[in-house]
Each structure stands twice: as C-alpha cells, then as structure tokens.
C-alpha cells in the first residue's frame, strides 16, 4: 500500500477487516468510537455486518451469536462498557466461542474521564468475569502494532476458542503515526472451524490440552451450548466425574501453547543490573527512558510485553534472575506490577505509577532508575 498517517483505532479497524472479521456489534464510547466509525463504513463494503446495539451487554451477546453462526466477530469499548461486557465475556469463555473485544482504556473508575488515558483495566481483563477461566489479552505499543495484534487476536481466538481482549489505551488509540500496512491479501488466517459436516462431532471433547474444533451453526451438526457446566455433548451436568476432566482441559488449554501465545520484545545490555518492564503506551515512555539512561552510562535492560495475559511468568522470572531491580511504569497504581512482584518478589520491583489521565514521563522512569 502506501504510507499513511493513521490513528491506532483506525489500525484496529483495518486489522479486523484484514483478519476476516465480518461482524461488529457495539455501542460507541470514547475513546474507542473510531473503531466503530471505520467498521460501520468499511464492513458493508466487504460483505460484513455492522450493528449498533442498545448497550454493551447486547453487543457482547450479538458477537457471540454471530461467531457461532460462522463469522469472525468483534466489539470495541472502553472502561464503563468493558464492565458491562464482563458477564458475556464469561459466557464466551465458558462456551469456548471465539470473539475479539477491544478495550481502549480510559481513566476510571466508573465514568472517570472519557478523554483521558489509562491502563487501569489490566486486572479487569484477567479477572473481570467471575470464576476461573483462561483468557488472552494483547497490548500494542504503536499504530502498526495495533494492526498486527488485532490480526493476531483473531488468530488466537479462533485457534484456542477463547475471547481475546485487545487491551489498548487512549494514547495508542488516538495517536497518529505513519504506517505502511501490508496488502490484506497476504493475510490469510487458517480455518480452525468445521465449516461442513464430516463424520461424528463431539463439541466439547475432553482430551487434555486439546481445543476441539467449533462447528458453525448451520453446517449440519445439532448440538447444545450452555454456560452451565456441560458434558462433552454440551448438555448441562452436575456430575463431578464429568466436570473434572472438563475443568482440566478448559483451564490448561492455553498452557501447552505459550510459545505461540506469548509475545514480548527484549532489548538486553550485557551486564545490566537494572531493567524496565512495560506495555502499551507506557512502553514508549520506557524505551525513551532506557535510551536516556544508557546515554548517561547506566546499563539497563528493557522488556516490553505484547501479551499481558497469560502473563509471561517464565520470561519475567528469568529477567528477575538476571537483574537486581525491575522498574514497572504504568498508567495505573501498579496492576501489572502485582504480577511482576509475584514472579520476582516485591523487593526487586519499583513501581512507577500515574493514574490521573496523564502519561508516565521519561523523567519519572529515570528517577526510579536512580533510586
């Protein structure tokens, strides 16, 4: 294509189109509205459907239904809408129906500040819906990555039959940068679903670590979907001998594929005893600070997480074994830092937090490197 100045939210919309998303349901909310705008314009051009729903609860329900019906489906929202979506995100997780949820984080809690930036939904993305469940959350640091990780979100969602959260923020969503997007024809995701009837189908087959394929409704298989605990045929069950193998498969289905799911960038420096670990817009600040610190002679490692959930435990643990101190800048009061502390111990972690709608500054990170 050619170089264009593009907003992160636009890149998310184009990423969805490129990945083959053909259904969007949503309720516009700042700072995510541009995602809905671009898809309302572009989806009909490629034979897709755009529906503005009455609220975010219905939006989630609609994309789950469309997904079972055979379409790659997405919604986009921000904090208050993300809260409303949690019940149905749990439904999608429990019934293993692929879908992509974009959360362009704004300052919370509650209505908060619609136009102000935040990374305050990190824990909500992991635990916002009740009960133990696997989930994937990806967090881009640039406009180009917003495109690439949206495509990846669809791939992972289809492959592992799970809702995937694209957890971005107001800075990345509204920031404009020059990008040269790839020709969409070069982006061909594999088909993970059963799109025609071929032999017997066990919708929730419980092989450990397995992800049974999803049969689209309408291809000829009749089966039952419920968010109650269900047996292999999808019918509700209270039998512990049926629940246990399901639980085992369900909660471990991502674990065997972490190499495929976990994405992070590392910039190591020999002999570094300090590291900065960040994600999303704060990763941009962190890279800036790392360069300034190295220019003044400090040896500093940088780790940027693109996959936040599942948390890259082994990689962060290894970082903790290499360095004495890990600085974690983020636009909240230390949500990702909880996870880093869990892996390397509280004493090794220095939080750099800001939760007033403004970005962390490079100077705040430099000060933490000094302290």
């Amino acid at each position, binding site marked *: 294509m050619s170089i264009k100045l593009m907003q992160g939210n636009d890149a998310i919309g184009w990423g969805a189109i490129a990945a083959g998303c053909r259904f969007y349901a949503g309720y516009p909310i700042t700072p995510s509205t541009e995602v809905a705008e671009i898809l309302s314009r572009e989806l009909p051009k490629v034979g897709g459907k755009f529906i503005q729903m009455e609220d975010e609860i219905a939006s989630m329900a609609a994309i789950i239904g469309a997904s079972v019906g055979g379409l790659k489906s997405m919604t986009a929202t921000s904090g208050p809408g993300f809260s409303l979506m949690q019940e149905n995100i749990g439904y999608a997780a429990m019934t293993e129906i692929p879908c992509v949820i974009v959360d362009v984080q704004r300052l919370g809690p509650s209505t908060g500040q619609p136009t102000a930036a935040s990374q305050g939904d990190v824990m909500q993305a992991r635990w916002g819906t009740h009960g133990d469940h696997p989930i994937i959350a990806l967090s881009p640091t640039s406009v180009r990555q917003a495109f690439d990780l949206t495509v990846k979100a669809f791939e992972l969602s289809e492959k592992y039959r799970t809702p995937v959260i694209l957890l971005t923020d107001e800075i990345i969503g509204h920031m404009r940068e020059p990008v040269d997007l790839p020709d969409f024809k070069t982006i061909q995701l594999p088909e993970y679903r059963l799109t025609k009837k071929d032999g017997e189908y066990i919708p929730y087959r419980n092989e450990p670590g397995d992800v049974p394929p999803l049969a689209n409704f309408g291809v000829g298989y009749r089966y039952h979907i419920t968010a109650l605990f269900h047996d292999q045929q999808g019918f509700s069950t209270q039998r512990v001998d049926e629940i246990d193998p399901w639980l085992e498969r369900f909660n471990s289905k991502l674990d065997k594929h972490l190499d495929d799911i976990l994405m992070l960038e590392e910039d190591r420096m020999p002999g570094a005893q300090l590291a900065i670990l960040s994600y999303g817009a704060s990763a941009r600040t962190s890279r800036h600070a790392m*360069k300034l610190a190295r220019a003044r002679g400090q040896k500093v490692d940088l780790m940027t997480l693109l996959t936040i959930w599942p948390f890259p435990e082994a990689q962060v643990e290894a970082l903790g074994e290499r360095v004495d101190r890990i600085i974690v800048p983020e636009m909240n009061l230390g949500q990702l830092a909880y996870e880093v502390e869990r892996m390397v111990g509280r004493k090794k972690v220095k939080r750099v937090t800001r939760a007033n709608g403004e970005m962390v500054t490079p100077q705040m990170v430099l000060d933490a490197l000094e302290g």
Partner: protein
Amino acid sequence: MTGSIAPRTEIRLAGEGGQGMILAGIILAEAAAIYDGKMAVQTQSYGPEARGGASKSEVVISAGEIDHPEVLSADVVVTLSQEAFDKYASTVKPGGLLIVDDDNVRSIDVPEAVKIPIGRLALHTTGKSITANTVALGVLVGLTGVVSREAIEKAVTARAPRGTEEMNRQALQAGFTAAEQVREGGSK
C-alpha cells in the same frame, strides 16, 4: 533500536475546540511523515464537549524513531484562544517560540511572544475565519522550517475539502507572508 534519542522538534498547537487545531496537527504530521519523509507522531487532548473548551494537538517530528509520543519540552507553542494561551503559553521551553493570535488573545503577558493577528488574516484573505488554522500552519512553517513549504502545501491541499484547495492555499500563503514580515522585522 538501542540507539540514542534522535533529536526531536516538539510542537504544541492549542485553541478552542472547533478551531481546527487537532486537524492542524494532523496536517503538520502528514507534511513531515508523508511528504518530507521524516518520522512524526501526533497526539491530542480535548474536553468532552464538541465545541469550546481548550483543545490541544501535539506533534513530535524527528529524523529518527520517536518513542515517548507526547511533547516533553515544547520547542514551539501556537495559541489561538485566550484559554489556550493561559493554559499552554508557559509550556514553551526557554528560548523556544511562542506564536499567539493576538486577534483572539487579548491579554498577552509574555514579552517574547510573536504576535500575529491570525484570525483577522484568515478573514481578510479567504473571508472565512475557520481558515485560521491553515494560516497558523503557514506562520509556523514560515518561522521554523520544521517541514518544507512544499510539504505543508501538499498536506494542506490533500486535506482540504474538494473545492476549497485554492482558498486553503491562500490562507497558507498569508501565514508564510506574515512570517516573512516578522523575520524581516528582525524582532519577535
């Protein structure tokens, strides 16, 4: 990727919501990134209101990679309203350039400010005060050369609604001319 920080030019454009300062920032970033082949990042902040309220657009331009996307120490600040002036005039770094539309900003307590009646120039040149953001871009580029004149002209006309290209070109030219007069005047 491990290199040092590439030199950055940091620009803050501020006015009332509706004056087109966010669009001006987008056009400036497009001039730099698409037509001058540099790196540019544009960010913005605005009140939730569709009109009114201080609106701010930031552009960082560099020959190299831009990491932190927001302005840290503004080389240039342009203000088109009193509220924007009161809020952002003091954010220009020492020795930096403060451009003020003294047609819209009545109380200017900064002696170094470059005062140009941008709103009035827009009205006289095109008959439309909404072209003030384009005049401001002409002044900014004329005084700083942060992007080439060719690049900003291409970026302005590419963004102008069909049929208004010539009007916007004239507005841009009015800004260039005002900048030249300031430069010839030799004083700020």
